[in-house]
């Protein structure tokens, strides 16, 4: 059976995609219902959730897939650093930081002949 065989593809997506993600969401609901909003345990959960997302961010910047795989690391890091500087100069407006970072990347890619 290959991926393309009609119903099998949907079963594949349902098991390896839906079940594999919603299990964790359901466990999260059951755990979250036992957490008080001002508790130390929730503080820890908050820290773990944030660190997990931060690790995903770092991986996306350092080890991207697709076109950016061929772009130099200094360009990607430089774009993030310039974006961060603009973000703090503009009193922490997300749109300013994001626009600066993406514009830096676009200019760099263009200059490198992408």
């Amino acid at each position, binding site marked *: 059976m290959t*991926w*393309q065989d009609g119903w099998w*593809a*949907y079963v*594949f*997506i349902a*098991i*390896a*995609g*839906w*079940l*594999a*993600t*919603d*299990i*964790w*969401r359901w466990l*999260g*609901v*059951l*755990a*979250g*219902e036992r*957490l008080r*909003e001002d508790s130390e345990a929730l*503080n*820890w*959960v*908050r*820290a*773990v*959730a*944030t*660190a*997990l*997302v*931060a*690790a*995903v*961010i*770092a*991986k996306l*910047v350092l080890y*991207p*897939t697709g*076109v*950016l795989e061929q772009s130099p690391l200094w360009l990607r890091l430089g*774009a*993030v650093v310039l*974006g961060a500087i603009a*973000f703090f100069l503009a009193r*922490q407006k*997300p749109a300013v*930081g*994001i626009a600066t970072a*993406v514009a830096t*990347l*676009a200019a760099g*890619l263009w200059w490198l002949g*992408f």
Partner: protein
Amino acid sequence: MERVEDERSSLAWFLTGARGIFSLPAIILMLSFVGFCSLTAQAGIPPEQVVFMTGIVWALPAKVILVSSVLSGASLATAFVAVTLSSVRLMPMVAALVPELRTPKTPTWLLLVLSHFIAITAWVFAMERVHQVPRRRRVTFFAGFGITLVATNMVLVAIVYRLVADFPPIIAGCLFFLTPVYFLASIWNSARHRVVYLALAVGLVAGPLFYWLLPEFDILLAGIGGGTLAWFVERSWRLRREVGA
């Protein structure tokens, strides 16, 4: 003012949530889905399956891993394990959001259903805005946002799939780059607890470190290890200040 706000109907709060589709996070996510369309189109996955995947899996990183497993010819069991391991992070994210959303009367089944709509974008959006909504309306507000966001992206994928097979590389690169940069700015901007800043900084370093040490479990270890470290340091500061005061 607060009382007037609270007199608005459930439908009004649902629509307030739905209007979040025009917010910066939702627009960036839609651009990321355009990028995902170009990935699946190049991989030769039929559009109906991509739409199905968008609705039923929802989390974009999980879908990218699912698609790459399929492309590498992985068996169902291998793909299941890869996606399961990569999605553990959804559990602490949901667990951190649920205490902010629910009231003592919120039924568990409703939270279980709504949890499906939580992925990074909806999580960041909700953590940022939900405290501005009266507590008994928060579940409705989140439902409005989550359901609209998923439905819109399913329609978007169905339409855009045919148009995006060949993007110029600069556009494709910028679409990809939007996601990490947006997450960074938004988490920093929405943090309401000092531990979040610390966990963000530690996680950014711990992610690559564990990728280098133990690439199979990097995100999980960086989250649990880095998060615990950030929590412990922040708690020590807090306790010391309390003793000093």
